[in-house]
């Protein structure tokens, strides 16, 4: 029995009257790639933001590496974050800094290494991301795929044991998307990272995932291996796999009322 590195228990999130997350439970084991899959509006981004400690839930707990991130003291949280890397959807590079300065940011703020060591580490990570020689560019000069890779370079600069990746292949051409998927697998295999990927791209899910958690309207509807998900009898999951929209068919009367904007009364 391996002790999970992340445990999400009974997580609820509510904004106004909208229930974004409804009783989400999941575990991430060390060394695995867990993919949280769901369409837009499924609550997957909200779940990620909670796991990163950027949002506070209505109720529920998330333990990362034995620390409850919602009740942790600032210093505890800071120490935890030094062990976590996060690659954001659009890279989230600081627009006023060059690529190299962005990548070195965590080292400059959290370590006391020599400048030369930091320089070499930055170039090593850029090489790994296939971005050699781009360190002097500004984020505005990069393509979408390069922004993501630069963001990934920054996320792994401290060699974290836990990596979060938001939408690795969204908005990329197929070749670049495949490259990023391979990079994720390399990072896990060579650096022994635990990786949580949030995505809606099925190809990449089936390629990289050890385990998949499917979110639908804020609820976990499936949690299993790639094969288990593929063969799931759940209609919603099959619709997602076969790219069928999930439309609700109501009777003519309700539809007419909606067209006439009468449903509110």
């Amino acid at each position: 029995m391996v002790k999970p590195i992340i445990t999400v228990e009974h997580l609820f999130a509510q904004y106004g009257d909208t229930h974004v997350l409804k009783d989400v439970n999941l575990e991430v084991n060390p060394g695995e790639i867990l993919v949280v899959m769901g369409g837009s509006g499924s609550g997957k981004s909200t779940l990620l933001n909670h796991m990163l400690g950027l949002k506070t839930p209505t109720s529920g707990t998330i333990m990362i590496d034995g620390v409850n991130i919602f009740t942790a003291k600032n210093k505890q949280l800071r120490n935890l974050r030094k062990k976590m890397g996060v690659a954001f959807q659009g890279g989230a590079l600081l627009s006023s800094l060059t690529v190299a300065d962005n990548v070195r940011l965590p080292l400059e703020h959290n370590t006391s290494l020599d400048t030369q060591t930091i320089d070499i580490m930055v170039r090593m990570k850029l090489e790994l991301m296939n971005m050699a020689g781009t360190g002097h560019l500004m984020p505005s000069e990069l393509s979408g795929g390069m922004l993501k890779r630069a963001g990934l370079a920054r996320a792994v600069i401290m060699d974290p044991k836990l990596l979060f990746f938001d939408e690795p292949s969204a908005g990329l051409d197929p070749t670049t998307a495949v490259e990023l998927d391979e990079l994720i697998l390399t990072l896990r295999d060579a650096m022994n990272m635990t990786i949580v990927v949030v995505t809606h791209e099925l190809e990449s899910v089936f390629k990289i995932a050890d385990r998949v958690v499917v979110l639908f309207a804020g609820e976990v509807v499936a949690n299993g291996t790639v094969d288990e998900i593929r063969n799931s009898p759940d209609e919603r999951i099959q619709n997602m796999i076969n790219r069928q929209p999930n439309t609700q068919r109501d009777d003519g009367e309700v539809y007419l009322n909606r067209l006439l904007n009468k449903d509110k009364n």
Partner: protein
Amino acid sequence: MNIEIETHNNYQVVKLYGEVDLSNSRSIKLDIIKLIKSKNNIIVDFTHLQYIDSSGMASLVEAFNEARENDTEFHIVGANGSPLQVLQLTRLNTVFNLADSVSAVSNNG
């Protein structure tokens, strides 16, 4: 993390034990560079090294460069497991002189 320095023929053998990471890579680098500055040939022994992160690797690159500038030898021996994977991932296996063991280097020199 532990470091032991032994003399073997005309080499200084730096044996690394345990894990090299952000917290100790700088002091290891300074130790090795000090040996290089006094014109010693260096063998870094990875045999008992369990883990090395990229700050450790970057430090070794700096030491390697220092050795070149001082015309001394710099070898890494006994890389295995995770450190070997990191060497391959960063393609530094194409940069360093790698060998299996200390005797493989020192007996040829």
